[in-house]
């Protein structure tokens, strides 16, 4: 018989288990299937020796099962917390509890203050794409095709993704560190204690600002990247602006701009949401803030790259 998971009721597990032990046909007490699964769950959370009291090392299969359960639990925990955060943000917006002044302030911090680094990144991306294209295509195909390659590369991929990566570092890390510090210094609790809702004050303005400013920043990055690519093409392979723009127009579809700005909108939503979520779950003082900020940057970067990979099959023929 499996040992009873000690302390399950305290974490709410027992409420999920319909019946711990039932009377079997042969008169012996048999465990309910849910008890068995709850036991595995507890082992995953607390470790086998803590639950079983066994001193011997668990088998490889037990360890593997515990790892899988632990990973599943973490994913479900994050998903649930993000869903609750989004629900609260929507409630704050619908209830008009978000100050327009806070949104404008966040738009300034996230948008205006990010313009220099976004422009610099876009210039470099445009130059590199143009030079690499020129190197590959000189003598092979008409050079005006370079205009199309630079434009499409910048608009479809470089502009949105590089801008998002830059914002992960500049904006996302800042949000996580700021909210994480507030969390560990009990400022978030202080908001609740004085009857204020930190989601309305801290989270919602940042998400709204992200949704508004990131598409604008991506539009700027697209424009600057194309211009930089055009200048670079002139200087490196001698392709004039008229030929460059001819090539750009040849394969241009207005859908491409919609695609680029849709990506920007999704990234503009995802970066602050993940950053806020991680910031609000920070624990453990200054070390905890550092650890959570690093994790947040990793999660945001992964989220941007995974969503970027999902966009072509969803929105491009």
């Amino acid at each position: 018989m499996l040992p009873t998971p000690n302390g399950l009721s305290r974490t709410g597990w027992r409420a999920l288990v319909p019946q711990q032990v039932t009377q079997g046909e042969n008169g012996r007490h048999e465990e309910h299937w849910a008890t068995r699964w709850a036991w595995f769950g507890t082992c995953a959370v607390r470790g086998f020796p803590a639950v079983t009291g066994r001193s011997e090392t668990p088998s490889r299969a037990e360890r593997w099962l515990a790892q899988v359960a632990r990973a599943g639990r973490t994913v479900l925990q994050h998903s649930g917390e993000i869903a609750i955060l989004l629900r609260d943000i929507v409630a704050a917006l619908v209830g008009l509890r978000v100050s327009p002044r806070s949104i404008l302030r966040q738009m300034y911090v996230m948008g205006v203050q990010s313009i220099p680094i976004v422009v610099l990144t876009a210039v470099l991306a445009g130059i590199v794409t143009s030079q690499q294209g020129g190197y590959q295509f000189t003598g092979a195909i008409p050079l005006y095709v370079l205009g199309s390659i630079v434009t499409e590369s910048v608009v479809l991929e470089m502009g949105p993704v590089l801008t998002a990566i830059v914002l992960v570092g500049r904006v996302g890390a800042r949000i996580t560190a700021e909210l994480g510090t507030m969390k560990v210094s009990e400022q978030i609790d202080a908001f609740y204690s004085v009857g204020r809702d930190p989601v309305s004050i801290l989270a919602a303005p940042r998400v709204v600002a992200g949704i508004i400013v990131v598409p604008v920043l991506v539009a700027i990055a697209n424009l600057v990247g194309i211009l930089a690519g055009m200048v670079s093409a002139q200087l490196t392979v001698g392709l004039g602006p008229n030929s460059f723009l001819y090539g750009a127009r040849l394969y241009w579809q207005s859908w491409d701009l919609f695609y680029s700005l849709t990506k920007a909108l999704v990234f503009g939503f995802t970066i602050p949401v993940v950053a806020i979520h991680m910031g609000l779950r920070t624990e453990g003082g200054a070390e905890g803030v550092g650890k959570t900020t690093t994790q947040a940057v990793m999660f945001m970067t992964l989220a941007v790259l995974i969503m970027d990979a999902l966009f072509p099959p969803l929105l491009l023929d």
Partner: protein
Amino acid sequence: MQTRPVIRYRGVHKAFDLPVLEGIDLDIHSGEMFGLFGASGAGKSVLLKTTIGLIVPDRGDVEVDGKSVFFGDGRDLRRIRDKVGYVFQHAALFDSLNVFENVETGLPVRRLRAMDGMRIARLVWQALERVLLDPREVMTKLPAELSGGMKKRVGIARAIVGGPDILLWDEPTTGLDPVNTAGVQRQIRRLSRELDVTSVIVTHDIEGGLEMCNRVAMLEGGRLRFLGSPAAFRASSDPIVRAFVDRAAAEAAVDLVATT
């Protein structure tokens, strides 16, 4: 004469990785100065935070003025938070707001909407004066520009500005030198008397707590180990309480030697 209970903890259970509170049943009466003692990690601050729903217990409930903190509706919780002032261990002032704005946040939102700027300024001014800070000097300062003792006082001003019925003090003297500690203890006594509030004080400072409070409790192993008067606490024959009192006395003596 026993007054009515204003805070009732009913079977409060809470576990993080390990159990912290294991079925706390406790009534705190109107006008009391109630001290909550216990070793680090005993769950004192956790219990205090459940009072206004900052920590949700795994089981059990807390009632404030007859209203359930966890099973009432959102309005009940807002009303409870409006009538309770919470003084945080490290003040928990909002970094981006100056002292005036920090104290102003202590005014209940609904009352704030109905007030003009002059009235708000007067209340903030009075709250700062009550904690013996010069409003002219500190109002425009950011928390980073204040000393530890001043931050604590601003935190207290924020807790009292809304005219609460109950004050919850989470380790109010932690991190302060003996002079500031004595000053904060005097303020707790004076404010509790002047504002006619019920105070619950979580503290490591046993001697200070026993002097200030008219009833005390000790948490140990997630349960209430002692509940009674300060005199009974001092005279307790319970070996765990005795060990705790002796250790606290020894630590106080070491502190005194270190500062003299």
